[in-house]
């Protein structure tokens, strides 16, 4: 098993790096998008709420793979060039942003209405109240579920293998088919993924317990 690791060390490292890179980029942008759409979903105008709702429901109910394939096959053909890595990351960002929006929205809803009213009656505009009063409290509540979304994001980044994104999974397939040692390769790749996800989810469980008390 270790021969697999030592013989293909550089491919594994490239894959590992690409997986991390893709996850971090997708996390940053999906956080921005997710918080944006969560705020739209609780905004006063009904029309805005409907748009946000449609966005969230569409991306939550279509498989990630289909979204990624659309960016990999259709967008480059008719609009602009995207590499596998780019299209995978964009798809992942949109997909995750819907889940993050839903999480953040439930966090915002869990903040008492009095907070908003209090802030407004102190002369803040709606946006100021959201920015300085509601969101900071909501974000504190949703940190554990957001962390779980990040774990999911790392796992989901394996779809890059479908679009030649050179992530861990893609490298794994290449190595497995070249060496014919499929099980050993998959175990090694599994360990690479666990290095990323397991500490994170244990830390989140710890955090959740700490916040619950």
């Amino acid at each position: 098993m270790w021969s697999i690791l030592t013989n293909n060390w550089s491919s594994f490292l490239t894959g590992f790096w690409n997986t991390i890179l893709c996850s971090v980029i997708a996390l940053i942008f999906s956080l921005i998008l997710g918080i944006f759409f969560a705020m739209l979903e609780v905004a006063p105008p009904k029309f805005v709420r409907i748009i946000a709702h449609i966005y969230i429901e569409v991306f939550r109910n279509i498989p990630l793979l289909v979204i990624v394939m659309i960016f990999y096959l259709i967008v480059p053909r008719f609009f602009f060039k995207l590499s596998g890595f780019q299209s995978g990351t964009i798809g992942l960002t949109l997909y995750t942003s819907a889940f993050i929006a839903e999480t953040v929205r439930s966090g915002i809803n869990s903040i008492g209405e009095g907070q908003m009213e209090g802030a407004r009656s102190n002369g803040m505009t709606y946006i100021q109240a959201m920015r300085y009063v509601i969101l900071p409290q909501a974000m504190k509540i949703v940190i554990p579920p957001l962390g779980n979304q990040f774990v999911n994001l790392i796992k989901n980044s394996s779809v890059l293998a479908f679009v030649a994104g050179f992530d861990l999974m893609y490298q794994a397939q290449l190595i497995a088919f070249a060496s014919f040692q499929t099980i050993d390769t998959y175990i090694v790749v599994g360990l690479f993924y666990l290095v990323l996800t397991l500490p994170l989810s244990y830390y989140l469980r710890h955090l959740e317990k700490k916040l619950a008390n």
Partner: protein
Amino acid sequence: METFIHAYSWVDIHFLLQGLWVTIYVSLISIILSFVLGLIFGLLRYMKIKYVSAIVGFVIDIIRNLPLLLIIFFTYFGLPELGIVTNQTAASIIALVIFEGAMLAEIVRSGISSIDPGQMEGARSNGMTFGQAMYHVVMPQALHNMIPALLSQFVSLVKDTSLATIIVLPELLYHAQIIYSQNTTYIIPMYVIIAVMYFIVCFCLSMFASYLQKRFKMD
């Protein structure tokens, strides 16, 4: 527009519906089996039996933190190396059941833990056995709390069946790929319609989840 009309000929739609059917039945079988597995392992993990619960918990954590795609590869390309021959359908169902079973076990465990221990104590002190107390008192309440999490896990299971295209399971996405690889101008219509099909199936499940939640709203 012309290509859309041609792309949605009855032959193609029929072919896609066949794929949708495979998606649905693979999902259904996986949902049922993984729910049973999740209940058993969630209970085992909750019951705190010496060693058993710790080992079960560790295995669940490992599986939960691996990508499903890796597990699909493992069951399709890895199991035959161990002498277990599988076809695409069996391999994808096994992979889905293992992965989603672990996810569901965690939901079940946290659902049971969310019930006040006093419920169990009360039931036990009224002369019920552990099994009776679990079945008649704790589980119904726990299941009620779990409904939203369970249903959203089922929705993601349906979406995750699309990953099985990589091992050539003849499901919806794979059938669409066959159609547009014969005529590449069909690529947009195909992705539009399969997105709509997936959306309908998953959205109905989501709606069902929120209906159940309202229907069984306690107090």
